[in-house]
């Protein structure tokens, strides 16, 4: 039966029995109830008997201590916005549809073509803020946070895929590339790849009245000039919104939602919902992109885990393994298990022939066929055969070792065989599935792959995985909001934490903050945080402390510190380290700052407003992006737009007569902050866009300063005499030159610590056991800092909660007798693991080795071997394969 392929956004069809998408977990078929006609044929045909056709929905009761909600969001559906021609013209697609068109596993196999005539488009337009920042038509007054960045990415990829020079234009109100290093990507798109960014919200998309399939966009430029451009294809950058089912779920659980149906949370409790014990993360909490979603998910795990810390490991069951047999003196007895994988392999490869061939190979004592080797009954059967046949090497010819090796290795262990006496032949993913039309060649290839595997298995010897104990203590560097939150996160989970701070007091940058934009009292929350840190029995606080030495590996670090004015030396043993070194406000050198006392930074203005109010302000001008988004400091500081809007609202609420002018380049009030931007405008705050090549000019006057700037809407130069000029100075990472060098921790050009993966591992660093959070990672608001600190604590807990770490046995080992200390291994290791020890020879710490084997290949003396991938073990495969050739 055929059904609409929802994953590919309806751009193609699929079967009623289907796998959702190629990377789905689990990678298994499901039946589309809506398309199924109920014939029941699949149940009869399934060789594994995996289909329970009459299966019904069941209710199960679970007793849990905490609940984490990550129900995600849905894309805004633009079909009701009829002026966009979506749904009526095939060449108007949503951004999600365009993603599928670009994807190699998408409907057009990654060939960039437009749906109308399957021709490659030459000119593509993206329309931003469809279903976002739009109270009039959609009711979604918030910014979806992700669309600017994905539109830039889609334009860049489209240009990459295109066979000729493609014209990409992004129509936007503001380009909001506020994430870590996002601005650099935007600059690359604009300056190097020629993606056009046009400040306009398109009124309507009109199909061209011929059969070309093209679309006309009409817009006003900022100077008021009417323009019309024809595009081959239009992409609607649709926003994110909460789906009805999530709203129902929230109501069932009794959670409070905000006016846009996102979960209500607090600044210092960013993942805690209104109901204790229930936590929210991801877009359900507010629009956000992947790194922030991953951060919040970990933060929610931390918050959900703390009250359950006492119950940790109480439900864990461990497997009893028999003692390992010594097979070193035994004659080779290789067992080969060939898998049919239903018809996945057996339907193409003649598995009977392969099995017979395997039997004929030297050393093979047993060869047999299974329908599904990974099924439980086949595994039990395999265990019996291993014991009965006294097998001492096992080869499974089936699917990929990347997915199934651990399962079969467990089977070996359960029989008392060392798990490294195992090898797989991948005759499914890399054979039957890719040579389906040529059974003969596929069978021949399967035989050769089995021969190679058998031959390698004969060279294998037992390897033992080292277990190292984990020191449960943690070290947190930095006593600001991030450091304190991380320390409490760990301490609340039951882990002892040493918090080191270089200053005499705690609080960091937050000491200078008063209120958040939503009115949360920062000082009250900060005092509470400091009190909890000082009183927590599991937190040990060391102030005026600097780190002088750091060594060891995950689970077992040693850090030396100098404590207090007396500089007392101390040694701290710990299992993990969290870096929360924070940031400061940039001290401007521009716009007469420091020369005229009417020129302040936003933080100084906040302080002044708190101290003496806004009554004495008549004209206030604010300049955005001071020390950000320029040549010296290309990145966006993320927080300054909201600092300006916060202070502007403060002034206007207290003194409605005051004029407030904000000179900006793009207003980046992302997510739910957009509401405050709307509020500022309704209060009469005036916004003027300026550009880098036409900067505002500040001149000194008798009683203040005058600011001269260009108004792009009026097309005229304006001059404002003001009694207050607030500079939205960016954020600068704390100077960590010394610390980074002691820790060997990598940093970006602007001094932020680098995470292991920008999207998926946003708090882990490349050194295992080392984590980063807060403004040491990138500029961020207090709620984002708090979430990230909890996330770091959560990831650290995942390591600390293990009683010991099991190291892979696939590591490099040096034969000291052969080592000539030539340093080639030291230089070639991408992880800087080999070092020359006291005996003057290279030594590789198994706990640090990643097992790539580069050193083994490079070593001219052949003094290094990579266990399980020794030269003979790889060469045996080549030799077996080519045995019959020469």
């Amino acid at each position, binding site marked *: 039966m055929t059904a609409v392929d929802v994953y590919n956004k309806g751009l193609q069809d699929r079967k009623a029995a289907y796998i959702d998408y*190629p990377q789905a977990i689990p*990678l298994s078929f499901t039946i589309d109830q809506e398309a199924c006609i109920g014939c029941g044929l699949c149940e009869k045909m399934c060789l594994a008997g995996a289909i329970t056709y009459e299966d019904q929905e069941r209710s199960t009761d679970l007793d849990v201590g905490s609940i984490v909600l990550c129900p995600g969001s849905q894309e805004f559906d633009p079909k009701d916005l009829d002026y966009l021609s979506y749904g009526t013209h095939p060449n108007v697609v949503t951004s999600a549809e365009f993603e599928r068109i670009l994807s*190699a*596993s998408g409907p057009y196999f990654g060939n960039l073509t437009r749906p109308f005539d399957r021709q490659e488009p030459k000119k593509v337009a993206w329309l931003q803020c469809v279903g976002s920042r739009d109270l009039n038509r959609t009711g979604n007054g918030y910014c979806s946070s992700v669309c600017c960045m994905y539109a830039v990415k889609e334009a860049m990829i489209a240009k990459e895929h295109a066979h000729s020079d493609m014209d990409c234009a992004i129509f936007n109100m503001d380009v909001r590339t506020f994430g870590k290093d996002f601005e650099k990507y935007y600059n690359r798109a604009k300056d190097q790849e020629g993606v056009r960014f046009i400040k306009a919200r398109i009124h309507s998309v009109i199909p061209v009245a011929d059969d070309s399939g093209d679309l006309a966009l009409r817009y006003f430029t900022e100077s008021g000039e009417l323009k019309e451009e024809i595009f081959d294809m239009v992409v609607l950058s649709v926003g994110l919104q909460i789906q009805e089912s999530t709203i129902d779920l929230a109501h069932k659980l009794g959670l409070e939602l905000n006016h846009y149906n996102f979960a209500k949370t607090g600044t210092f409790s960013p993942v805690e919902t209104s109901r204790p014990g229930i936590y929210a993360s991801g877009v359900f909490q507010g629009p956000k992109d992947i790194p922030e979603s991953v951060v919040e998910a970990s933060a929610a795990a931390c918050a959900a885990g703390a009250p359950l810390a006492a119950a940790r490991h109480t439900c864990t069951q461990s497997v009893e393994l028999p003692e390992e047999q010594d097979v070193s003196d035994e004659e080779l007895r290789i067992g080969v298990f060939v898998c049919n994988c239903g018809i996945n392999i057996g339907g193409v490869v003649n598995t009977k022939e392969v099995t017979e061939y395997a039997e004929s190979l030297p050393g093979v004592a047993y060869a047999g066929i299974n329908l599904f080797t990974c099924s439980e009954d086949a595994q039990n059967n395999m265990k019996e055969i291993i014991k009965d046949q006294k097998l001492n090497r096992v080869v499974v010819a089936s699917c*990929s*070792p*990347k*997915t199934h090796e651990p399962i079969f290795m467990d089977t070996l262990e359960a029989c008392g065989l060392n798990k490294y006496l195992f090898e797989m032949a*991948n005759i*499914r*993913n*890399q*054979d039957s*599935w*890719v*040579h*389906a*039309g*040529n059974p003969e*060649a*596929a069978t*021949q*290839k399967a035989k*050769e*792959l089995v021969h*190679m595997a058998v031959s390698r298995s004969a060279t294998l010897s037992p390897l033992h995985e080292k277990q190292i104990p984990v020191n449960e203590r943690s070290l947190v560097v930095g006593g600001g909001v991030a450091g304190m939150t991380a320390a409490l996160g760990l301490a609340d989970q039951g882990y002892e934490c040493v918090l080191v701070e270089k200053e005499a007091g705690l609080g960091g940058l937050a000491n200078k903050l008063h209120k958040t934009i939503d009115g949360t009292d920062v000082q009250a929350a900060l005092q509470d945080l400091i009190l909890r840190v000082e009183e927590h029995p599991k937190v040990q606080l060391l102030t005026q402390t600097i780190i002088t030495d750091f060594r060891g590996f995950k689970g077992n670090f040693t850090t030396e510190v100098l404590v207090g004015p007396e500089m007392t030396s101390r040694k701290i043993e710990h299992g993990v380290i969290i870096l929360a070194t924070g940031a400061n406000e940039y001290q401007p050198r521009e716009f007469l700052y420091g020369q005229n006392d009417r020129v302040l930074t936003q933080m100084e203005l906040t302080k002044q407003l708190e101290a003496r109010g806004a009554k004495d302000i008549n004209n206030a001008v604010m300049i955005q992006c001071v020390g950000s988004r320029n040549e010296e400091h290309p990145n966006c500081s993320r927080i300054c737009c909201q600092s300006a809007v916060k202070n502007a609202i403060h002034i206007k609420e207290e003194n409605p007569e005051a004029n407030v002018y904000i000179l900006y380049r793009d207003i980046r009030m992302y997510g739910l902050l957009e509401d405050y931007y709307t509020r500022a405008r309704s209060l009469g705050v005036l916004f003027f866009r300026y550009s880098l090549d036409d900067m505002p000019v500040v001149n000194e006057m008798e009683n203040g300063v005058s600011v001269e700037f260009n108004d792009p809407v009026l097309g005229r130069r304006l001059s404002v005499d003001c009694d207050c000029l607030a500079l939205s100075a960016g954020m600068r990472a704390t100077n960590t030159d010394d610390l980074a060098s002691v820790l060997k921790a990598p940093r970006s050009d602007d001094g932020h610590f680098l995470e292991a993966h920008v999207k998926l591992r946003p708090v882990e660093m490349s050194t295992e056991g080392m984590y980063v959070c807060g403004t040491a990672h990138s500029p961020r608001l207090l709620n984002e800092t708090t979430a990230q600190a909890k996330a770091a604590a959560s990831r650290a807990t995942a390591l600390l909660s293990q009683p010991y770490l099991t190291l892979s046995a*696939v590591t490099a080992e040096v034969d000291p007798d052969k080592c000539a200390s030539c340093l080639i291994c030291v230089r*070639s290791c991408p992880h800087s693991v080999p070092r020359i020890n006291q005996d003057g020879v290279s030594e590789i710490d198994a706990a640090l080795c990643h*097992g*790539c*084997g*580069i050193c*083994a*290949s*490079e070593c001219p003396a052949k003094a290094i071997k*990579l266990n399980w*991938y020794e*030269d003979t073990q*790889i*060469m045996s*495969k*080549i*030799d077996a*394969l*080519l*045995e019959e*050739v*020469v």
Partner: protein
Amino acid sequence: MAEFEPKIVAFLCNWCAYAGADLAGVSRLQYPSNLRPVRVMCSGRVDPVFIIEAFENGADGVLVSG
């Protein structure tokens, strides 16, 4: 003369190329059956000696992918 069927030894990095070859299977992409993959933990593990060994023993081509 029968058509020439080259034998190609492919050293595939476990983390990228080998995973890619698996994904080609999941996506059912069809390609000639002449490739014989050898999984290594990093393409940097491929000692030039392996390549020479393969050619010496009669391989028609060697692919190192990672």
